């Protein structure tokens, strides 16, 4: 698959002198892929994302987004990228929902009726048409996230970048958002790059997970299952494994070795199967 993003050997020095060095594995996002960047607070997830958006300039290393260096040519690729930064609240800058969702279209110089149509479409898709004329500060947290997302999706980007989108959402809103993102990925083939420290959401959305350690090192990558089998690696990097991962790990200690499953349904099936087969054997004998 075509590579949309590749970051390698990135080094960035903060104004206070701290250095973030993205060593180790190259960071890659391919077309249509759902990538999760997992790491503790302060591991540099946001910094990495800021580099992809051309907001920071690396002192070393290469960054390619759609084949160009975003620090220099972000305007060339900006319509192909949708962004939802941390604190959605601060991402909504226009006075009404409609204005905010149409913000980038208007600034990119789209035609008026095109704008109307595209905004209508995206509001419909996210099911927030009724909020059109609302003022952002009267929206709930979940609604704000959706409005922010609508603003990011309105240009029909090929790559959607989300920085800690689950922050401040309650579990129900979070699940909603995950379903929505998966749908967008499925229907439009939009690649998704998402940073989070909420590990429980990872299995529900990720094709590929990158684990970042403090200081910016990319420790490992892999599918959620591969990653969560390496419990020691996770805990070494201050990442708490998901509950089910730990459960299977604990079971191993009791001598019960089962395939790791990361959704409740699968896990229940695996465990129940194991118990049933044991029982059946009992019966058969």
């Amino acid at each position: 698959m075509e590579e949309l993003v590749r970051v390698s050997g990135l080094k960035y020095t903060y104004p206070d002198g701290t250095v973030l060095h993205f060593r180790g594995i190259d960071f890659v996002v391919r077309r249509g892929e759902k990538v999760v960047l997992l790491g503790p607070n302060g591991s540099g997830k946001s910094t990495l994302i800021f580099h992809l958006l051309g907001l920071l300039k690396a002192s070393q290393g290469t960054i390619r987004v759609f084949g160009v260096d975003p620090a220099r040519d972000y305007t060339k690729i900006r319509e192909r990228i949708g962004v939802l930064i941390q604190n959605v609240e601060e991402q909504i800058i226009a006075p009404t929902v409609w204005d905010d969702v149409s913000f980038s279209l208007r600034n990119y110089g789209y035609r008026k009726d095109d704008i109307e149509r595209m905004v209508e479409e995206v509001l419909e898709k996210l099911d927030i048409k009724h909020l059109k004329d609302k003022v952002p500060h009267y929206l709930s947290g979940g609604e704000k996230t959706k409005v922010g997302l609508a603003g990011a999706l309105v240009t029909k980007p090929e790559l959607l970048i989300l920085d800690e989108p689950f922050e401040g959402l309650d579990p129900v809103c979070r699940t909603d958002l995950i379903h929505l993102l998966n749908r967008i990925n499925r229907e439009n083939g939009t690649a998704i790059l998402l940073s989070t420290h909420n590990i429980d959401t990872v299995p529900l959305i990720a094709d590929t997970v990158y684990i970042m350690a403090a200081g910016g090192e990319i420790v490992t990558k892999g599918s959620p299952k591969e990653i969560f089998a390496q419990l020691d690696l996770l805990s070494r990097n201050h990442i708490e494994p998901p509950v089910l991962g730990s459960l299977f790990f604990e079971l191993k200690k009791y001598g019960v070795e089962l395939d790791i499953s990361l959704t409740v349904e699968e896990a229940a099936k695996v465990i129940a199967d194991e118990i049933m087969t044991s029982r059946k054997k009992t019966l058969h004998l």
Partner: protein
Amino acid sequence: MDIGIIDYLANSGRSFFHRASPACKMVFVLLFVLSIMITGDLVVLISIYITLLTLSLLTDLPFLRVVSIASYPAIFAVLFAIASWNGDPIRSAVIVFKALGAALTMVILILTTPYHRIFSCIRPFLPQVIVDGLFLTYRALFILLELMDNFIRALKIRGGLSPRSYRKNLRNFAQGIGLLLVRGFDLAERFYCVMRVRGYSGRLGNELIERKFIWSDIFIFIITLCVCSLSFVVRFRDDFNRFSLYFLYFSLFVFVVSGFYHIGKVLGVRGVLWKS
């Protein structure tokens, strides 16, 4: 000055005044303020003020609150009046009523029209930077107000606000403002990032304006025209002075009638007096 409440009332109101087009209400403000400015006749000024009171009844908003919000400049006007006192109470009254009338006009506008609508109406008359500055200020205002609420809450919980220790309160408030400023700079930085990422090129807000003319527009327009022409006539045709009293009686009558109407039908007694 409770900005949160004002904004809420403007955004949530459903009266015909709220529904009227912002442009029409701008014309209303323009002509009313003009009428107030050009006239020097106290009777006319009081009549205009009473007409404005009637209009504020029609906004379906808590009446006393509206009037009290609009009474703030009276403090300054009284100051100007006292300062130039020469024994003529009428002259002072004229000064005060001009300020009161103009303020009430503005307050009716602001309580029935969301800020951003007003900004987009004045957009053609101001540089783009200022308009976008206004939009951003408006947006930042509510984020900062929330921060300030949190801060005041923390202050109360931690004993940082005591009724009589002004010195301590002053110090703590200053720290709070400092805190808000520091947070504000962070906020500005993030706004900047967002604007860059989303391709800001000098257009922030309010593009979606429906240009429908509804009957409440016509109503407001007619009243405005009446008041304005009366004020002009009284100002420029001296022989018309003696009719200004009729204007006063008439506006008073309308005010009383609509007052009763509202007490009875729309709000109930409590609502008219003070609905929080």
